[in-house]
Each structure stands twice: as C-alpha cells, then as structure tokens.
C-alpha cells in the first residue's frame, strides 16, 4: 500500500542526511572540544556535575554581593594575638544542584580551621566563605570580592574546573595565590604561577590504576570502549591506551560510541566475543551507569571480566544508579573513605561525628588543602609584611611544600604546581568504593 509516490524529495533528503552525518562527524569534534574540556569533571563526582551544570540557580552577581555582606555564608573567624593570622577566602558551591560537593568541602574546611585555631602556637586562620553557585561569572565576582574587599592573602577553590578557568586568571592578575582542591581538568595550573592545586588530574590517576589492575588481576589483553565525540572521554582513552601499552597489555579492539547514545549493546556484544580479561571504559557519568547495566545484565559480561573505568565512573551516584551491576568496577581516585592511615582514620572519625555522615574525596582534598595553606603560612612568616608581600610569600612557601603529612598521603607539589601524592585504586564492593587489594 503506497500512500505516496515521491522521488525527488527522497533523493534530496538523503543528500541532506548524508551532509548532516558528515558535518557531525567532522565538525562536531572541533566544535565541542573547547566547551567539553572546560566542563571536564573536577574530581570523580565531577562527572555528575557536568550533567547538571546547565541548571543554574537564579542568583546574579548583584544579589550575591548583598548576601555576601549579610548572608549566613559570611563567617569570619577572628585571629587571636600572637603570630600574624592568614586570611583565606574559600569559594565553594553551596547552593543549587552541585551544592552537595561544596557543602562537603566547606564542612571539612570548617573542621580544619577549628583545629588549627585551637592550636597553642602557629598562625591562626581567618576564614571568609562565599558561594560560587557553579557559575563561572559568579566565581569571578567572588574572587574580586575576596581580593578587593576582604583583602585575603590566599584563595581556596572554586569547586569546578570550568569556574576555575574563569576566576583563576583574576587572582593571577592581582597576584593572589589560589589553591584548587577539586579541579582536575588539564590547563588549570597553566593559568599562572600563583595557581596551585592539591587535586590529582586524571592523567596522574590512570597510570596507577592500570599498574595495580595488571598486578592484581593478571591482565594480558583488554578491550577499550570510549565516547568518540567528547574531549574528556577521548583524552581519558588516550591516557589509558598509552598506559596499557607501557604495561605490555594487549588492546584487542577499540569500540566507540557517541555521547548522546544510550544503546551500547552492539559494542559490548562485540567486546564479549573478543573474550578480554577486562574492559577499559572512558566515559562521562551519564553513559557510565548505562554501560555497566547493559554490560553485566543485557549482554551478560562474565563477572570475572573486570570493568576498569576512568574518572567519570569515580562517583557514588554512578555506583548507586548502576546498582548491583557496578560490583567489581575498578576506578582510580585521589582518596578513598576506607583509607586506613592514622591521619585519615582520625579525620573520618571526627568528620562523621560532626556531620552525621562520612567524608568523601571532596572533603578529604579540602581538609588536606587547609593544612597545606597552614603549613605554608607557618613557613612564610607573615608578620610585618604588606598585603602584597604576604601574598607573594605564601605563593613561594606553597612551592616549597615538601612531603607534608596529609590525609591524601605525603604531599608535595610538582614543578608545575599540580598535586603530587600517590593515588588509590578502588573497587566497588557491596555498592561502595573499597580499596583494591
């Protein structure tokens, strides 16, 4: 039954479609590369943020200024007499969809500040808190307020990498040191010599993940699966590929998908036929959860075949959404809540008692960051220095941070002001991240 007889339309439309697919294939990558890298997840859970960044809280820079002076967010801890106090501006997301990350950071910082100010000697910390609301323009306003109104000597934050890309240049220009505690995108510390971070970038975590996975699972051959049109997933896949080759692990096949896809079964079925020891996946949080479900449930990948994920999988939200299909997932991270060194144990205990729930990686990195600043202030000797001198002194002292004991482990900065401490490799066990043994 033919409802219509058309020829010219179909030919024209097919040309249109072919053009469209060529345009997406060729142009799509270049066009998306920049924004994707800007919203690259900051730390593990960051990938979930990428998904929700579009939803913004209706808070303009102007209204922010008002809340800044009157709102409950402003907490200034007065320094006591003695050593010159260090004034720190903390820029975290404490409103909107991503507040869960900033709140965890703020709780950890408040705890650290309390501990430091309770010490009998050493400089005190004066803390000013502001909300960046996951908006780059608001992060800029917050930084300007810290620098010009509060006259802080150092800034910690902002929570997201894409906020940092906007706000950190402001601090760099004004000569105010910044310590990022959750930015993991590439290029953050390239902004300038005042920009530091204690959060490990993905290219620092993956080598350890592959090394440990190889040792403990005796990997010899794997398949690689990643999103071909997303800069974050692709750069993760590049790091994985290099590390796999370095470790002498064979990559049988590479499969790709588009970020908008939800059907990965065809690719996973092809992977299953390759019979690999493990599947290495580089994807954002959204595809990550679906891939886990379709692999374990729909295609029936054997539980003995490990799934090794990139930073996009390093999120309790992904593990929760994937349910029992996330069991056995291996992901590298900067810190794990089951860390059993003395500092971490005390931190976890105190944090849990205070906040009614355990700390996550965000809290640990912010907590360690506060102690890194305190350590720098001790060595910088701020007494009698002008504000500009004090800022430069803190920057120089940060550079000399060497093997400082923190919850993240023995901490130093690299020559490029990035974090330098051992990552942990996690495995999902009973729905939670545990340390791979």
């Amino acid at each position, binding site marked *: 039954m033919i*409802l*219509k007889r058309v020829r010219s339309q179909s030919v024209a439309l097919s040309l249109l479609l072919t053009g469209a*697919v060529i345009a997406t294939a060729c142009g799509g990558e270049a066009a998306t590369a920049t924004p994707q890298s800007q919203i690259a997840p900051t730390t593990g859970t960051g990938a979930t943020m990428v998904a929700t960044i579009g939803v913004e809280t209706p808070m303009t820079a102007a209204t922010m200024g008002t809340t800044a002076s009157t709102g409950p967010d402003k907490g200034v801890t007065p320094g006591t007499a003695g050593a010159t106090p260090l004034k720190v501006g903390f820029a975290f997301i404490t409103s909107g969809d991503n507040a869960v990350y900033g709140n965890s950071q703020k709780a950890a910082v408040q705890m650290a500040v309390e501990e430091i100010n309770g010490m009998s000697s050493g400089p005190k910390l004066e803390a000013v808190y502001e909300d960046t609301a996951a908006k780059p323009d608001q992060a800029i306003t917050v930084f300007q307020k810290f620098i010009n109104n509060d006259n802080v000597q150092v800034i910690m934050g902002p929570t997201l990498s894409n906020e940092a890309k906007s706000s950190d240049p402001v601090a760099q220009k004004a000569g105010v040191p910044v310590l990022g505690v959750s930015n993991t995108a590439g290029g953050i510390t390239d902004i300038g010599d005042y920009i530091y971070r204690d959060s490990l970038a993905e290219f620092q975590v993956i080598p350890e993940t592959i090394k440990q996975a190889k040792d403990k699972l005796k990997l010899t051959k794997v398949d690689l699966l990643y999103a071909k049109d997303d800069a974050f997933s692709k750069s993760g896949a590049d790091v994985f590929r290099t590390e796999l080759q370095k470790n002498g692990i064979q990559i049988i096949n590479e*499969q790709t998908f588009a970020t908008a896809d939800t059907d990965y079964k065809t690719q996973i079925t*092809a992977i299953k036929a390759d019979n690999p020891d493990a599947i290495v996946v580089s994807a954002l949080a*959204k595809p990550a959860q679906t891939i886990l*479900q379709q692999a374990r449930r729909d295609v029936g990948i054997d539980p003995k075949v490990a799934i090794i994920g990139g930073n996009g999988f390093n999120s309790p939200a992904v593990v929760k959404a994937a349910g029992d299909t996330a069991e056995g997932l291996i992901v590298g991270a900067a810190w794990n809540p089951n860390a059993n060194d003395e500092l971490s144990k005390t931190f976890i205990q105190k944090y849990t008692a205070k906040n009614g729930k355990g700390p996550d990686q965000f809290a640990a990195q912010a907590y360690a960051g506060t102690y890194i600043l305190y350590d720098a202030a001790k060595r910088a000797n701020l007494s009698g220095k002008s504000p500009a001198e004090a800022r430069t002194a803190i920057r120089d002292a940060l550079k000399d941070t060497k093997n400082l004991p923190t919850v993240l482990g023995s901490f130093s900065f690299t020559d490029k002001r990035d974090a330098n401490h051992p990552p942990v490799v996690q495995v999902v066990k009973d729905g939670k991240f545990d340390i791979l043994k």
Partner: protein
Amino acid sequence: MNLAQLPQQLLNGIFSGSIYALFALGYTLIFGVLDILNLAHAAIFMLGATVSWWLVSAQGWSLLLAFPVAVAIAGLLGIVLDRVAFLRLRQRGAPQLSALISSIAVSLIFVGLSRLLFKDDRKQFPDGTFPQVYFDIGSIRVRLLDVVILVVSLALMLGLTWLVQRTSLGRAIRAVAESPKAAALLGVNIERVIMQTFFIASALGGAAGILYGMSLNSIEPGMGSQVELKGLSIIILGGMGSIPGAMLAGFLIGMIEVLSVVFGGSQLKDAFVFVALFLVLLVRPQGIFGLKQGRAG
C-alpha cells in the same frame, strides 16, 4: 572481526530494528497523508517514554496500565502538535517548507518542556518494573523484555496495516493521501481524518519511545535525536509514505548497524547506515517500495 558474536548481533539487530520500524511508521503515515515531514515526531517519541516513566516511577502505576495511558497521551500530543504547528499553515496553503520549520519549533518546545518538568538527567524505570528474565542459549542471551518488545511492535505494525487496509477510517486515510480534493468531494471530512492520522502516528511514536526507553533502561530529553536520523533514513530507504517499506527498512537499518560493528567497527557505525542508504538509492531512487513517478499536482 570475530564471527562468534554474529548470532547474538543479528538478534540485537532484529530487536532494535523492530523499535526503529515502529518509530518510522509515524513519519511515513504523516508524510503519506499530508506530504510533510513532521520533525516533531522524535520529540513525541521522547515524551511517550518520559510520561510512561513518570507514571511508573512517580505515580507508582504498573507498566501494564502506564503503557496504554502514555501511548494515548502521546497520541493526544500529536493532535496538539497538528493544531499548533500545521493547521494554520495548511489553511493558508503555506509551502511545505514552512510546515517543516514549524514542526522543528514545536519539537524544540516539547524537548524544552521536558527538560523543565523532568530535568535533564538520565532516568531509569525502577527495579522490578519488568521482570528481569534471561534465556541463555549457548553463547546467546535473549531477554524476555526484548521478546515482548518484538511481539508488541509486530502487533502494532500488523494492527496499523489492518486499520489502513480494512477499516473505513483506513479507506478515508488512503483517500486523503491520494488526493485531498477528491476525498473532500466524496464527502470525507478531511480535517477529521488528518486529526486521526496524527493521533495514530504519534501514538505509534510514543509506543516506540516507551519500548526504546525500557529496552535500554535510559530516558532523557535528548533521546529523540538518537532515532531521528534513523527514522528519516528508514522512510527514504523504504519509500516515502510506504508502510511495508518502513517496516522492512526498519529491520534492515537495525541489521546494517550491528553488521557494521561486526565487520567494520563501531567507529563507522553511522557511516555504514548512510552508505547503504546511498547505494540503495543509486539503484532505486524511489526507495524499496516506492513507485517511480512523482505525485501529480
């Protein structure tokens, strides 16, 4: 290339092809009757899936109840779509291009509304919405859900064929498709037929959306874009306006997709589909089931 996966992949192709075919039927039906491409069809597909998800997860309905209700809502949205996007343009005798653009606008509105009401994240049906039963036959794994989806889509396709071929409504639809003027002269209420066509086409699109969302356990505002181009390829391949053509081409596209992964790799999955489309059109520019001459007048 590993041929051990072939039986499983062919099965995957049949299952996804059945959903593609169901989705493409809505395109072909509206094109057949109105001569316009309804680019809001993918948005209806998404809304059908989203509404069923909302009924099941937020309202606690059983899927057996939520499915027909969501399908009916998708059909009603199709009527809304016709009133908003096409009716005025049709009355003024506007060119087809205007209707095409207008349908893109409604599509954007629908997707935007869904973002606003249901957020942008990836949604899943709650556990236990459909029993997770698998049959492992050798190296092949068959999901009960996929079998049910195949049966449901085949039933809907046969139902549509029967409706168009054997009922008075179907006769009216075919009459309007052939010539609206002649149909009007013979006493067919054209506007009513168009409304009914939109309801049927959109209900089928909504049903396809629900099945797709269930099969992949993933529903989000952007999901329509994943089937939009496939749907258009299917109606071109099958012959624009041809119902059996859309069904056959749906399965064909599903098959080409999996075979391209088996023999070429997933990097070239989409390219294979369009190359196949191109080759078929070189031989048969009117599509598999299309007739050669263009429509008179």
